[in-house]
């Protein structure tokens, strides 16, 4: 910031918003005990900064924003309850004034340091909130995304998203969801809840190409969580998994926006820096706990793909083994399907097909386009064209995104008419 050009108050404020916005908000929520008051206070603090920082930015922008934001929140309280009793005003002021003493001691503060951002993350991802509300609140407050961007990402109107955020904040207040990092006995479980919300941000962004920025937000959140709660296999595992998948994005779509399968991707387009960061995390993630976190095992599978210079060089045998581990750790039909698809690469499509058919018969994956797509691919490779065509039709019907639909249509065209 020292080398910012003179009159660079605006860029200095942008920088402060990116670097300190979420932390300052998190601290203000703790000080005021109210999401809306904190948001309004911070907004006013940034507006004040536009004027005050013109001559010289403060040495500690974050502390400045918090101090001004807190004062503006107090003003806000005074205005809000002016029409109520003087007593109520004095009580509310006293509560906020009392909060300024940083002398709180709780389990989390003792174990991990007093970190408001972590409190904010755990509060936004509290299991008493619906997952979609958790995700919306996290993106809005922790990632500082405008409501309109969050709405676009989840394909709802801005008004609907604003309502969702209002309801989530109202529940935090009314139900008494605590603003804190959970104590030790709840922490593991609650970390998994936060990771599920982060992974939802990532998978939603991953499937729909234009919403690329959300993948970056998910990775950023996991990086922050890893920095705040270091050495957790699940956190490292999810971060590695997302990095290794995201690294392939430049190769996943061709110039026309069509889907390119892993085996057909130009591996030179993969993001080498992301792969290196992801690979470095896989070992520690796997070793952090016994048994390892399922995220760490999934990251190890992604790592094997990332390390193969060419598709035939892929270590499918080890991938099959890792899927078997994953099935033991967290059995799910999706993992079974992936296991079968990997098995086809080792033992051939004929060996894998009965597993996929059995999975389809059980009905646990109804509505999931990847199931008929895998089945179609196996049938295609076995030369059973008409059955493959029917399966691609099923996949086409279920596909949610345009690139997938175009891919299935392409396969259908390749198979020709019956």
């Amino acid at each position, binding site marked *: 910031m020292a080398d910012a050009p003179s009159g660079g108050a605006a860029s200095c404020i942008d920088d402060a918003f990116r670097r300190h916005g979420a932390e300052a908000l998190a601290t203000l929520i703790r000080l005021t005990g109210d999401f809306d008051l904190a948001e309004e206070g911070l907004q006013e603090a940034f507006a004040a900064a536009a004027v005050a920082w013109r001559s010289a930015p403060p040495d500690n922008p974050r502390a400045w924003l918090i101090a001004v934001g807190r004062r503006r929140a107090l003003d806000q309280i005074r205005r809000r309850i002016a029409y109520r009793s003087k007593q109520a005003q004095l009580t509310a002021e006293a509560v906020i004034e009392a909060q300024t003493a940083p002398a709180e001691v709780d389990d989390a503060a003792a174990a991990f340091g007093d970190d408001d951002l972590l409190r904010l993350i755990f509060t936004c991802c*509290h299991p*008493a909130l619906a997952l979609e509300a958790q995700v919306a609140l996290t993106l809005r407050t922790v990632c500082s995304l405008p409501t309109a961007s969050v709405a676009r990402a989840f394909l709802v109107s801005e008004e609907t998203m604003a309502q969702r955020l209002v309801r989530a904040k109202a529940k935090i207040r*009314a*139900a*008494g*969801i*605590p603003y804190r990092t*959970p104590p030790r006995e*709840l922490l593991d479980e609650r970390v998994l809840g936060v990771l599920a919300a982060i992974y939802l941000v990532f998978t939603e962004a991953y499937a729909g190409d234009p919403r690329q920025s959300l993948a970056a937000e998910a990775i950023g959140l996991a990086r922050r969580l890893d920095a705040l709660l270091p050495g957790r296999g699940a956190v490292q595992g999810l971060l590695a998994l997302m990095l290794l998948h995201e690294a392939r994005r430049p190769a996943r779509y061709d110039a026309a926006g069509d889907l390119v399968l892993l085996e057909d991707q130009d591996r030179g387009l993969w993001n080498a820096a992301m792969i290196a960061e992801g690979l470095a995390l896989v070992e520690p993630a796997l070793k952090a706990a016994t048994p390892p976190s399922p995220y760490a095992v999934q990251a190890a599978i992604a790592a094997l793909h990332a390390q193969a210079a060419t598709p035939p060089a892929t270590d499918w045998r080890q991938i099959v083994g890792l899927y078997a581990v994953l099935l033991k750790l967290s059995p799910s039909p999706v993992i079974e399907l992936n296991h079968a698809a990997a098995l086809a690469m080792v033992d051939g499509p004929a060996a894998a097909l009965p597993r996929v058919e059995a999975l389809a018969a059980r009905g646990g994956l109804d509505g999931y386009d990847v199931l008929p797509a895998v089945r179609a691919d196996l049938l295609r490779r076995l030369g059973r064209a008409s059955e493959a065509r029917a399966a691609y039709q099923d996949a086409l019907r279920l596909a949610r995104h345009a690139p997938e639909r175009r891919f299935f249509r392409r396969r259908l065209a390749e198979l020709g008419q019956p």
Partner: protein
Amino acid sequence: MQYLLLIYSAESDEAKQDVPAVMAEYGTFTQGIVQSGAFKAADRLKPVATATTVRIREGKTLTTDGPFAETREQLGGYYLVEAADLDAAVAIAAKIPTAKYGSVEVRPTWPMNG
């Protein structure tokens, strides 16, 4: 804050329970929250077959047999507890014996004097 812990279970699941054992667990649980100071009130409700629903429509009192909503799980009792926050209330709710086969709804109450 005060929270009402509403205890729901299916009567078919209730029938499968070892009643004396469950009653003993309830005794231990209640004693625990009385000692901790969280306990405010509690009641066990008679079976849903004894329920009557009342509505006033256009000035007329309509009385019908049965509960307001026909659901598989029925309200069977409640505890009113004092808890610092939702996590504390959920921790108490999780110790209610019926939570193992039924469910417990945790609802904050409006403070009546606020």
